[in-house]
């Protein structure tokens, strides 16, 4: 139904079920990239001839689109980055470090939201706390509240949706609880923005991180939302060209946000393309995306459930986008390789989330992750392929 917007599927017979790693791109995104490169390629924000002005205008248009998409209040709250990893690292280095005694994360974090904290010489119970989860990976709100009480000067950094399991965190509740105890909250939105709409005025996150390439946009683009009142305290992370009002050898006067955070030539083509990805989502409308993806997800869950010896890690209701499973007695890697030979692309392994894998006592899982370009036919082919792979391995 939506496949036709994505040129990849015209060229490839692959059943692509690895969107949580990166999404396919609709043609309007690729067209916008090409248009920039072949019609008005030039640098932004510094040169001021015609093409450069056009590039700057398109670039800033993406900022507006993103602002409106997540209901930020002001454009300066949107800072472009390379991706969620850079956004998280930026906040870790330039805001959290030396300011907060404790960082609280969930059990389901991606390495990008664990390792930067380790690099600050935090480790479990020494500046880093991990909120427990139940067997079905549900966030333990009571434990969270206790951690907030015990650690009065905390910064909470938490994923909206787990990339490894698709588990959805009760974000609003988490943020309200954190704020009650005076803690600030950063959200890893890598796996949420592609699937449903987020309203910064509603959830009141202090920081929210965005991955362009997972949201139908180009690679090498991301963004960081910073609530306006924190901008003053956010130190510039990288500095250089186009962040500057005045420089002598003695000192530097930086421009205001967002520019002071966007040093050097940005990924201009990527950012312009990302704008089109957001327009694409808004044209389809999030409510249609949610309904459509839910239907496919339920169908996948049901069909997988019929397979003998399948192990699930979550229910289907509080899960979005990704579904992780194992087949008792088999290694996920073996399944992944055989499915690949049948032209079905899934992901196997620890999904950059080793700690939770260790906690569950498993090496990894097989993960199917969905997007609007998937349909029931993809699921049928996947299930057939999976059965065949199981047969080859078990016989």
């Amino acid at each position, binding site marked *: 139904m939506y496949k036709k917007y994505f040129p990849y599927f015209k060229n490839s017979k692959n059943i692509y079920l690895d969107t949580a790693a990166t999404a396919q791109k609709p043609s309007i995104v690729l067209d916008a990239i090409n248009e920039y490169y072949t019609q008005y390629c030039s640098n932004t924000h510094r040169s001021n001839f*015609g093409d450069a002005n056009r590039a700057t*205008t398109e670039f800033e248009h993406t900022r507006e689109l993103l602002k409106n998409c997540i209901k930020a209040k002001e454009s300066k709250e949107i800072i472009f980055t390379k991706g969620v990893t850079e956004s998280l690292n930026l906040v870790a280095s330039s805001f959290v470090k030396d300011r907060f005694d404790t960082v609280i994360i969930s059990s389901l974090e991606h390495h990008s939201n664990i390792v930067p904290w380790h690099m600050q010489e935090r480790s479990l119970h020494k500046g880093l706390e991990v909120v427990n989860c139940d067997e079905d990976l549900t966030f333990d709100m009571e434990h969270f509240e206790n951690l907030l009480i015990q650690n009065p000067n905390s910064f909470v950094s938490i994923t909206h949706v787990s990339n490894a399991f698709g588990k959805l965190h009760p974000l609003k509740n988490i943020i309200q609880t954190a704020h009650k105890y005076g803690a600030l909250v950063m959200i890893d939105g890598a796996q949420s923005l592609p699937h449903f709409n987020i309203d910064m005025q509603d959830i009141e996150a202090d920081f929210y991180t965005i991955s362009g390439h997972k949201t139908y946009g180009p690679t090498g683009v991301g963004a960081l939302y910073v609530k306006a009142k924190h901008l003053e305290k956010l130190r510039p992370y990288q500095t250089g060209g186009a962040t500057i009002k005045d420089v002598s050898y003695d000192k530097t006067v930086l421009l205001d946000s967002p520019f002071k955070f966007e040093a050097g030539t940005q990924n201009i083509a990527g950012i312009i393309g990302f704008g089109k990805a957001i327009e694409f989502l808004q044209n389809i409308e999030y409510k249609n995306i949610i309904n459509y993806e839910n239907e496919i997800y339920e169908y996948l869950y049901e069909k997988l459930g019929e397979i003998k010896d399948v192990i699930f890690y979550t229910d289907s209701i509080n899960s979005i986008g990704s579904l992780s499973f194992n087949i008792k007695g088999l290694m996920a890697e073996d399944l992944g390789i055989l499915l690949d030979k049948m032209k079905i692309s899934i992901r196997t392994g620890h999904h950059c989330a080793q700690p939770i894998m260790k906690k569950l006592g498993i090496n990894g899982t097989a993960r199917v992750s969905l997007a609007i370009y998937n349909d029931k036919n993809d699921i049928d082919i996947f299930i057939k392929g999976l059965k065949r792979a199981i047969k080859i391995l078990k016989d």
Partner: protein
Amino acid sequence: MNILEKRLDEVVEDFDLFDDELEKYEYIVDLGKRLKQISENNRNDAYLVKGCTSSVWIIPSLKNGKMIFEGDSNTVIVKGLVAILIKIFSDATPKEILGFDLKQLNRLGLAEIVTPTRQNGFTSIVNKIIEYAKGVNHD
């Protein structure tokens, strides 16, 4: 109709006479050259517009309840733009100035206006004028 809007109409009509962009800018250069230079001691920080790549000064005064603006710049084209803004904004009450919808300025079709560059000179000048008008507006 706001008096500023009428004045803007006139400028836009003038602009419409030109076939190409270069002619339009020749005209702006001309306006710039003809704009009266401000005195050296008015070229000070109080009147300096912040956020321009070139230096721009805008000096306000109040006469019979109307604001009068003088201005200058070290670059001719910006001086021309200043001349246009003075034509539109000068000799108007603070209320008229504040009642004017700034988006209308886009009708001038100047790249310098519509480009959201990091240091948008044109916007900064307009903001300075608005700021002055707010300062004397007592409604």
